């Protein structure tokens, strides 16, 4: 990027919203994905739609890539800059513009923190269910871009189930508005659902309209201990076949339990092989009845101990503990590589077996936890990025797991997105015609391949991140 281009960028956003200091470049060179980093050429904090639009037009003229970013908690490298790129940081767009109690909607800017939105709507007895692990840090914009999931996906679905409309600046600089407060809308192609999960490759969000629910009046949170991982997996299948849909059904294996307990000190059973954290919610007596049925199924499947949280405080501390699982696993080894292979729910015991097999075969250690209820597990490889041989084996182990997941009718990523980390596996699950269609859409909407190029799939080698990142840009 030439100095004159940088001057033009600076002129668009104003000096105070522009930086290209080495310190800022370094600290915007990563997101939460292990092993990926790349320095951007410049970083901007635009103030309005007009500025973003002008930046996109300039990018097309001068042919430099643009990468959008929220809080940088993504786990597939979606917000990692590409070579010679301009990074657009949206965290200052953090206003909740409207909470409409009569239509049950919220209109927000993309930089609103998910947890902050949840607290605000809950004050009005409303409910925004998607709750990724990084809920207190991640932004709604990032959630929509990655179609983020979370602990409550089993009953309440994921981010896409709550997006009613978006406004975004397209790669050519135009402002697109799609969707609205209508609960039904079949006018033309469903652009909204297509945009959700596009990982910042099709546009930069400026406003997002979300659907809200009434808050469930009652909930019961249970914790069950198991001596055998298989028993826990069978209990999960048992609960689903009993036609009960808990709002949450999370499992943690022994390694994860020990790390989480070391951090939280809330008395998790460090000698159990697995635990299930289950929550049922809803209205009135049904919740209690469901909880009773679940307890019976847990007992039948050899749960050695079951307890119910005595109050909201205890329930929250259990859920918070679960959300720290990924980061807590880094207590074991300095690099924790987390993936999110997902299979049809009935195949959960099988995929867990496959993770164990991968660990044996490639001589690496995994901590396992995840959303047992929706077949989305998080095999987390505990390694050290300074040991390149081990990192190599870890990559092979993941390749094995992804292949096995696809064979079981599953997918390579349930909720983190494809980004950089999984693009080499996309064809195995999307198929060639599917991948081809995605590429054609991207090419049609972004003719110069300006916006977040090289994420999800590669269109052309230029302007995209190289592996490994070149020394020139890395330090």
């Amino acid at each position, binding site marked *: 990027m030439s100095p004159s281009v940088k001057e033009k960028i600076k002129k668009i956003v104003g000096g105070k919203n522009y930086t290209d200091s080495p*310190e800022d470049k*370094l600290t915007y060179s990563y997101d939460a994905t292990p092993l990926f980093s790349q320095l951007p050429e410049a970083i901007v904090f635009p103030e309005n739609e007009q500025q973003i639009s002008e930046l996109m037009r300039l990018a097309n003229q001068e042919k430099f890539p643009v990468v959008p970013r929220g809080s*940088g*908690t993504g786990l597939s490298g979606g917000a990692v800059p590409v070579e010679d790129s301009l990074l657009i940081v949206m965290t200052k767009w953090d206003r909740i513009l409207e909470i409409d109690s009569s239509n049950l909607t919220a209109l927000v800017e993309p930089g609103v923190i998910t947890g902050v939105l949840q607290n605000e709507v809950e004050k009005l007895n409303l409910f925004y269910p998607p709750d990724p692990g990084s809920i207190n*840090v991640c932004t709604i914009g990032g959630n929509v871009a990655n179609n983020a999931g979370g602990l409550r996906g089993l009953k309440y679905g994921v981010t896409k189930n709550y997006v009613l409309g978006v406004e975004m600046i397209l790669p050519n600089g135009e402002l697109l508005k799609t969707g609205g407060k209508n609960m039904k809308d079949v006018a033309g192609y469903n652009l909204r659902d297509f945009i959700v999960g596009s990982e910042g490759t099709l546009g930069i969000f400026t406003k997002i309209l979300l659907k809200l629910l009434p808050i469930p009046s009652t909930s019961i949170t249970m914790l069950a201990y198991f001596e055998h991982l298989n028993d826990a997996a069978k209990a999960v299948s048992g609960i689903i076949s009993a036609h009960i849909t808990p709002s949450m059904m999370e499992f943690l294996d022994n390694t994860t339990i020990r790390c989480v307990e070391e951090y939280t000190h809330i008395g998790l059973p460090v000698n159990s092989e697995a635990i299930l954290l289950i929550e049922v919610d809803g209205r009135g007596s049904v919740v209690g009845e469901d909880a009773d049925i679940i307890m019976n199924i847990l007992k039948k499947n050899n749960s050695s101990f079951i307890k119910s949280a005595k109050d909201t405080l205890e329930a929250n501390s259990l859920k918070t503990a679960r959300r720290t699982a990924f*980061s807590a696993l*880094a207590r074991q080894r*300095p690099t924790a590589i987390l993936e999110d292979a997902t299979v049809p729910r009935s195949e959960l015991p099988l995929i867990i077996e496959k993770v164990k097999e991968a660990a044996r075969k490639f001589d690496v250690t995994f901590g396992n936890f995840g959303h047992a209820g929706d077949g989305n597990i998080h095999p987390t490889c505990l390694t050290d990025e*300074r040991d390149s041989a081990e990192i190599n084996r870890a990559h092979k182990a993941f390749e094995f797991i992804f292949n096995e997941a696809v064979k079981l009718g599953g997918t390579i990523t349930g909720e983190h997105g494809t980004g950089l980390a999984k693009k080499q596996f996309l064809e195995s699950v999307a198929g060639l015609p599917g991948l081809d269609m995605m590429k054609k859409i991207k090419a049609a909407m972004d003719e110069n391949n300006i916006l977040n190029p090289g994420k999800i799939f590669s269109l052309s080698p230029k302007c995209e991140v190289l592996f490994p990142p070149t020394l020139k840009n890395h330090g």
Partner: protein
Amino acid sequence: MSNDPITILTGIKELTDIYSQCIHCGMCLSACPTYDLTRLERSSPRGRIKLIRSVAENKLPLTDIFAYEMNFCLDCQACETACPAGVKFGTMVEAGRVAVENKGIGPTLKSFILKQVIPYRNRIKFAAKILRFYQKSGLQKFLRVSGILNKLFPELAKIEELTPFIPAEFSDTGIKEINRPAGKAQFTLAFSYGCIMNVLFPDVNKDTVELLNKIGGVVISPSGQTCCGSLNAHNGDFKTAKELAAKNIAEFSRYSYDYFVSNSAGCSAFMKEYSELFKNEQLAEQAKIFSSKVKDLVEFLPETDIFSRFKTYDKNVTYHDACHLVHTQHIYNQPRDLLNNIPGLNLIPLEDSTRCCGSAGIYNVIHYDASMEILKPKMDNIARTKAEIVLTGNPGCLLQLTYGVKKFNSDVNIMHTASFLNKII
């Protein structure tokens, strides 16, 4: 021996292991008051770790922005509490400060205060006496009203506003070397009057000694004691910190005692770290014994029979957690247990009670504007509790919150937990 700049400048070799532990997941961002202010990644714990790592790996020279970020950090360690991976951020940022300090690119006012004033009790007292003269003589009023101060030294004018009214007598003149209880002696306790507490809040020290006497403590406070060294260590000056620590260890070892009780969270936290400070050195064993006996006042009291001594007190009270109690020493439940057991007292939870008030050692002097932006939401949260009294356990917090009362026209009463408890037993 590594030859990276941080290792050379600080001598801390384990740094690679500490920063490698950070998986840059970002869970620390929401806990960080300075990230909240700037929304810049480099003002976040994750960003600062990246900067430290980059310097250590020779990818970034020791720049002014690096120096600024190391000192802009409050070192409140809320990020350590928030970090599931257990990254020791405090150690890292303190190493970063050592590097900055050794290169001589840190703020000069800070360096002056830390090197020339804090280590010397008599100099602190001298400075305080000058301030008192200035406050009493009418000179303060003249300069404030005329605006001369503001015009000549705008930075100094802001700091000047912060200074509380300096008492005529400091606590080291009121507290004897050995203070015996009126009743039966139950334990022997070492006590230090600290450097800031001594000149700014001598009454808190007197209340603490009285309180400990009332519950049967023989309180020993040797005259040769000195500042614990925490302010120096947190700002990268480990050399002075060690000299001060060694002096204290020697002075207190003249007596035998059951516990060392401190009423300044920053001091108790740091004195617990003496054992680490002298690890593998000649003083190691003595430092280990010294540290093992240190307890903060609110940590010690629940282990005594104080609960049976509380009088009824019908008021709304709230509690602000000092960073060095909650984040560094993980003391959260103990003060709440004490307060919840006082008959009649209504302890109102303070929203974000564990968030730094912006005092952070001498942060409010060096980064006045940021410190005030951090203080504002704290005062708002306090106002929302509608409590009559706010209790806290560190002189820095007392100073900052008392100033907050003045600045934001609040009528709440800020008290140290020791003074409050002394009043009701």
